[in-house]
């Protein structure tokens, strides 16, 4: 009985002691004494090589407006920035512009200016990678406009920039033009060196943001861009789901078309090394989609017509993919991961070559097959 009593005293004492830790579940520094950064940008400075800035929420602005009241905050975020010789140097300057300590754990996106991305990512990756707080799932994007102005935009839906980008990408109906890449994926690509980095291009549009294509990297430098159509073709090779595809059925100026939605692709890439040392990749892309639009309207599609649509879509996709692959070779940017396939099939050959010297010289044989899964509500 005495033992049970003693045990209870211990339990109650332990519970009481634990209450001290409840007051600061984060730290001794409470949440309201911190600045929570929701996005980060990097650019070239005016007087220094690096400019680093963060978008911070206005304290209190995250509370929703109560019924019958108005949201008091017209704009929910502001920007602070700093310049320096390196990223930490810029960070040091940035911190002097705020009284609160900055918390990085909620960063949703990192935006790089194209000028910064063209210089190289080595320092950026080291800085971001060593910072424990930065989530590995943070999205990385490139902009050709001023990243500071981009993040300082008052979005029409009053979202914070980082949250906007996260919501865009995490929507289950995301489009094929938005091929996302996260921080941890960039680390993986850079470490393994069997492919190159790519990043979505983000630009302001209609008071909000739009994805305007894809930035291509060769090794760790940005070397070029793909437009939206090219990005969609690349998405098919990279098996990014839920896309759209509009296929013209006549010549230029002819309005006849068939449009598919819910595009899904399955690609198989096979390297073939001939005895003469010539390397070729056979790219087989199987695409499936559902008919969503037909001009002129036809509510009774015959099997022969379906085959014609499928053939037209297949040819168009083949042409687009070939065009994109040629462009990738021109920029020496293997964003598809052909190097990885080569490493698997010919590991010894892979070890003996410098992939970036070989990639522009390899041949491609593209094979596409399109399948229409259904015709929507109409027959």
């Amino acid at each position, binding site marked *: 009985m005495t033992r049970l009593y003693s045990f209870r005293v211990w339990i109650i004492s332990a519970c009481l002691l634990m209450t001290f830790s409840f007051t600061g579940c984060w730290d001794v520094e409470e949440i309201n004494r911190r600045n929570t950064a929701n996005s980060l940008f990097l650019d070239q400075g005016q007087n220094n090589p690096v400019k680093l800035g963060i978008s911070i929420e206005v304290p209190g602005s995250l509370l929703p407006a109560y019924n019958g009241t108005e949201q008091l905050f017209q704009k929910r975020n502001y920007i602070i920035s700093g310049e320096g010789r390196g990223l930490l140097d810029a960070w040091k300057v940035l911190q002097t512009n705020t009284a609160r300590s900055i918390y990085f754990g909620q960063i949703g996106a990192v935006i790089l200016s194209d000028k910064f991305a063209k210089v190289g990512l080595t320092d950026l990756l080291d800085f971001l990678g060593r910072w424990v707080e930065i989530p*590995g799932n943070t999205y990385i994007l490139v902009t050709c406009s001023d990243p500071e102005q981009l993040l300082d935009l008052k979005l029409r839906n009053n979202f914070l920039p980082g949250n906007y980008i996260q919501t865009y990408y995490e929507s289950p109906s995301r489009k094929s033009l938005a091929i996302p890449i996260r921080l*941890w994926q960039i680390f*993986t690509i850079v470490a393994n060196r069997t492919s190159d980095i790519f990043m979505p291009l983000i630009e302001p549009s209609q008071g909000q943001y739009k994805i305007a294509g894809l930035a291509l990297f060769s090794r760790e430098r940005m070397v070029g861009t793909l437009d939206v159509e090219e990005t969609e073709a690349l998405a098919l090779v990279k098996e990014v789901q839920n896309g759209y595809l509009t296929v013209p059925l006549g010549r230029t100026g002819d309005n006849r078309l068939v449009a598919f939605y819910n595009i899904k692709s399955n690609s198989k890439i096979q390297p073939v090394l001939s005895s003469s040392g010539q390397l070729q990749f056979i790219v087989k892309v199987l695409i499936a989609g559902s008919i969503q639009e037909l001009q002129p309207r036809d509510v009774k599609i015959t099997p022969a017509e379906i085959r014609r649509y499928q053939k037209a879509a297949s040819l168009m996709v083949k042409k687009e993919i070939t065009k994109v692959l040629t462009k990738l070779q021109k920029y020496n940017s293997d964003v598809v991961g052909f190097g990885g396939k080569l490493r698997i099939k010919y590991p010894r050959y892979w070890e003996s070559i410098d992939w970036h010297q070989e990639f522009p010289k390899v041949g491609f044989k593209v094979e596409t097959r399109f399948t229409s899964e259904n015709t929507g509500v109409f027959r």
Partner: protein
Amino acid sequence: MLNEKTAIGPGLLFMLNFSAVYGYGFFLSMYFAAKYFGVNGIWGGILIFILMIPVLYIVTDLGHRFPGKSIIRYLPEITNAFPAKIIGFVYLVFLVLLTCWSLNIISRIFNLYLLPRTPFQVILGLILLIEFYITSKGIEGISRVTAFIFIFCLIFVLLFTVSSYQNFQLDNVLPIFDFTLKDLKNGKYFEGIIHLFNVGLPSAMLFMVYPYLSERRKGLKTLLVSSGLAVLLIEMVIISNIGIWGSKGVLQFDWPFMELGKQTNIPVILQTVGLFVLPIMLIQNLFAGSSFYFATAQGCSEFFGKYNYRIYRWFLLPIIFFTSVWTTNAVVIRSLFNYFVAFGFGVVFILPLFLWLIALMRPEKTAGSERGQSK
């Protein structure tokens, strides 16, 4: 012959061994698998288990040959008194180092990821005090607590392990076999075997704990199944780690498991699975450390005599603390670890094998009679 009157059944031994192998071996195995075997690191778990089988067999076989005796007690019966003293002392030194290293792992993770502003020494001291308290409960108490949390641990670990496969890229673990003669010749694979055997080092504790087993008939089976389960869970995370980061990508990180935990989530339901799993992993490590602490204290008690293990816990407390905080430099610790695993391989794999062979060669009469006693 036992100082303590307590005993543990096969069930408790199962939980204790699982906690020790998983809690200690989990944190670094994926790094070493990727470092020394590259893409073939996916076979790391199987290799670990194969290496552990002879050690577990020797633990049980010597336990049967010398019933109710720990390694410290039966060493003089296998070798002469003087070599027994030296081997016993070396074994105890290794147990102290194992306790220190286990403590170091958990403290470093706390310091880097959870409490960056708290001094490393404070974190280490607090965790050591917890281990000190747990150890006071004896082997039965430690194993009962590990049994209490076993189901929670298994559920969360399985949840984490399965969800860690969401970004798995098959290409990163291909080709399945990519062993080269060059790496075999330059000793890279051998070095890898020694480093991967780090997961098997908790078996050193079993040489002290096995005499407490009440049903020795089930000893080998219990140890094989519990080690197998722990290694299987480790193996699954080795595969998912290499499958996600690639073999070279894993090597970027000091603690690959923590980085995996940061990015693992169950979409829509749970964004931070790692946050839930981390306490489980750390608790497992805490119990692993406590069992090593107990084995060390018990070993000291049997080796030096005079006091029981509770008193030796006090003597060991400053030794473990100061040895653990001797260097706070992460880079230095990593290079020291190479010597530690080599020492561990010698003490836990080669030395027991050597002792077992000598025990086999002992005069049949003595060995037979003692085996008879065990039955």
